[in-house]
């Protein structure tokens, strides 16, 4: 069965088709929510943001030029809105403090238990990355965005995307090492 493409839905949304909006929302809202939640780290804020993101889709559908996938376009909107929240909150500055606070609890019994499970430790370390590093890791691994698409969403050159991904992974390895897991890389 062939489903209606996102691009077709957006054209319908441009002509004020609410049903198309519902379909697009149903198709993407969870991933968009998770993307912004990973950035703003607050469920209520993330929920507010996704309705804002899709409202922008409703308003700007006629301007969608289809140069990128619809999901890439929506992630760009979501990122912009999440960063606005972070700026208002001043969380960019607090980010390192947040990470530091998590590291301070590295020897909690819960964490010690988690060390038995390398996957759990890795997931914990993923949450300790900076916003910039979390974002690129999520876009590449979870949202399945190509180098070009990440460049479009984040607004950086493709070469920088690769460099940033390298440093995000390097930081992840360092965090793992602090938890006693040496991956032998980089």
């Amino acid at each position, binding site marked *: 069965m062939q489903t209606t493409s996102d691009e077709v839905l957006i054209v319908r949304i441009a002509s004020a088709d609410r049903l198309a909006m519902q379909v697009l929302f149903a198709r993407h809202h969870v991933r968009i929510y*998770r993307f912004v939640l990973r950035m703003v780290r607050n469920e209520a804020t993330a929920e*507010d943001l*996704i309705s804002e993101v899709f409202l922008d889709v409703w308003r700007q559908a*006629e301007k969608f*030029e*289809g140069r990128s996938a619809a999901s890439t376009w929506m992630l760009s909107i979501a990122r912009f809105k999440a960063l606005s929240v972070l700026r208002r909150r001043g969380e960019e500055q607090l980010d390192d403090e947040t990470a530091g606070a998590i590291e301070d609890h590295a020897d909690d019994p819960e964490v010690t238990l988690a060390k038995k499970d390398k996957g759990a430790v890795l997931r914990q370390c993923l949450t300790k990355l900076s916003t910039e590093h979390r974002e690129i890791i999520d876009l590449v*691994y979870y949202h*399945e965005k190509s180098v070009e698409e990440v460049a479009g969403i984040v607004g950086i050159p493709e070469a920088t995307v690769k460099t940033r*991904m390298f440093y995000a992974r390097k930081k992840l390895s360092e965090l793992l090492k602090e938890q006693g897991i040496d991956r032998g890389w980089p």
Partner: protein
Amino acid sequence: MNTANNDERSEIEGLLPWHAAGTLGRRDTQRVEAALANDPELARRYELVREELAQTIHLNETLGAPSPRAMAALFAKIEAEPARNKAASINLGARIRAFFASLSPRTLAWSASAAALAILLQAGLIAGIMLKEKNAGGYETASAPTNVAGAGAYALIRFQPQASAADITNFLETNKLSISGGPSAGGLYRVRIAATKLPKADLDRIVKTLREDKVVGFIGITE
């Protein structure tokens, strides 16, 4: 290992996350696969990437989903939005892309030659121009009540396949032409040159001038 090989290896290693996610192009995929087959250390590092990929998915999947409140809030906001003109608000380019997007790659591959696509695409562009003209109250279309058959001077025109919507709009505006019908088979449009009948010599002169324009592929007088 020499510098060139090191550079190549670093470049390939930089692509591993995208290879694991399946988002590389065919050429890069082949390069990475060839390198992985011949470089055990790179293959080991690729396993680290796959581990990261798996745990990133796991982490995101445990984040849950938003409550129905999000959708309710969205549609409440949409309801509060001012009503908009449904037909006029559709972006023409998006509509054409949507049309092609609605075709499966197989359909496109087997059913569409490049020429047919060009004509179809242009038909979409011109339909958009006609729609805009109609909404702007400017040019008349075939359905316009004032466009009585037999009145006016007309030509059949085929635009160059590479002519853009902007080129065609500019051509029509500059020469005070309006599209009154088409496209027929072969991508021909009927355009109105004047609101009243013109002497043949005058019409020939105008058509000859129009033929010189870069957007025109073919033009000939018609009734």
